[in-house]
């Protein structure tokens, strides 16, 4: 895994600190009792459920452990973690099952 430098890290930390606070304070500070337009709220509702899958998909399909070659254990473990997360709503159950699946399938395949 490639390293990033300290100045990048601090720019990201400060940028996210200012950005996150602005997101949190924006409406409480400025909006008063006005509401946001419905079309905007409708798009905001789907940001996390769109960005996170977009982020994780390449990591699953081209895992760094295999130098980016599609790998059955990684793909299966990912789908199992997603399914357990969906059914149980429990973050740690999902992660644990996924990790066990990755380990188990890797051992089984040899």
């Amino acid at each position: 895994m490639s390293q990033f430098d300290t100045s990048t890290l601090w720019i990201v930390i400060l940028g996210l600190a200012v950005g996150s606070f602005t997101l949190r304070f924006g409406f409480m500070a400025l909006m008063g009792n006005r509401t946001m337009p419905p079309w905007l709220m409708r798009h905001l509702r789907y940001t996390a459920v769109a960005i996170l899958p977009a982020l994780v998909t390449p990591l699953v399909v081209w895992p760094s452990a295999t130098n980016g070659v599609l790998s059955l254990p990684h793909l299966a473990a990912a789908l199992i973690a997603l399914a357990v997360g969906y059914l149980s709503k429990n973050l740690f159950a999902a992660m644990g099952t996924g990790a066990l699946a990755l380990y188990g399938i890797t051992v089984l395949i040899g």
Partner: protein
Amino acid sequence: MPFTTTKSAFWKGFRDSAPFILVSGPFGLLFGVLAAEAGLIVPEAFAFSMAVFAGSAQFTALQLMQENAPVFIVLISALAVNLRVAMYSASLTPYLGSAPLWQRAFASYFLVDQSYALSIAKFEANPDMPTPQRMAYFFGTCTIVTPLWMGATIVGALIGTQVPESWGLDFVLPLAFLAMIGPMLRTPAHMAACLAAVVTALLAAGLPYNFGLIVAGLTGMIVGAQTELWIEQYKAQKAAVR
């Protein structure tokens, strides 16, 4: 249930937040471990958690920095993951908007999934609650979770420096993202948004500067919003026919 004092509202929030110890503790620990794996020293990991205080955004930034993505992509993506707090802020404004500005500024820093979920449920169930008691309840819900998140990051970062390279923790972060996505798939619109983002991410993976992530994220948002609209229109039509 009416509160007699502002103080009792605070302690009610404090007690209601107890189950979230089981979420924030391990999650903070995990961030610390993975931050250390990514090369952050303990004070850096702690500063990250204290300054940003947003789990999923921190994980996103950590992943993208390891991919050497450009800084503006890291910032846009992590803030996009955290856009939901803007919705929380908007939805709490009718309840907390009349509090003094400095209180609202403080409360904003502590606005996370847990404090929002507990507070909005309480405020909606008790419309007559006075604003000072609402604020007290809100701050009560943050009193355990906040120090726990930051403390757990430090402990995790200390543990992370002890984990040998051979353990292969490189798939832990993807598993954490997947585990976060699962519970988000509440409605067909959320599923459509997720699916559209996955397909676009694969098709757009070749774009430079991790730009595929932004394209895929926007596509997912638009598909989710449109699906929601279609489902609403379909339901309205059905109701009109009856």
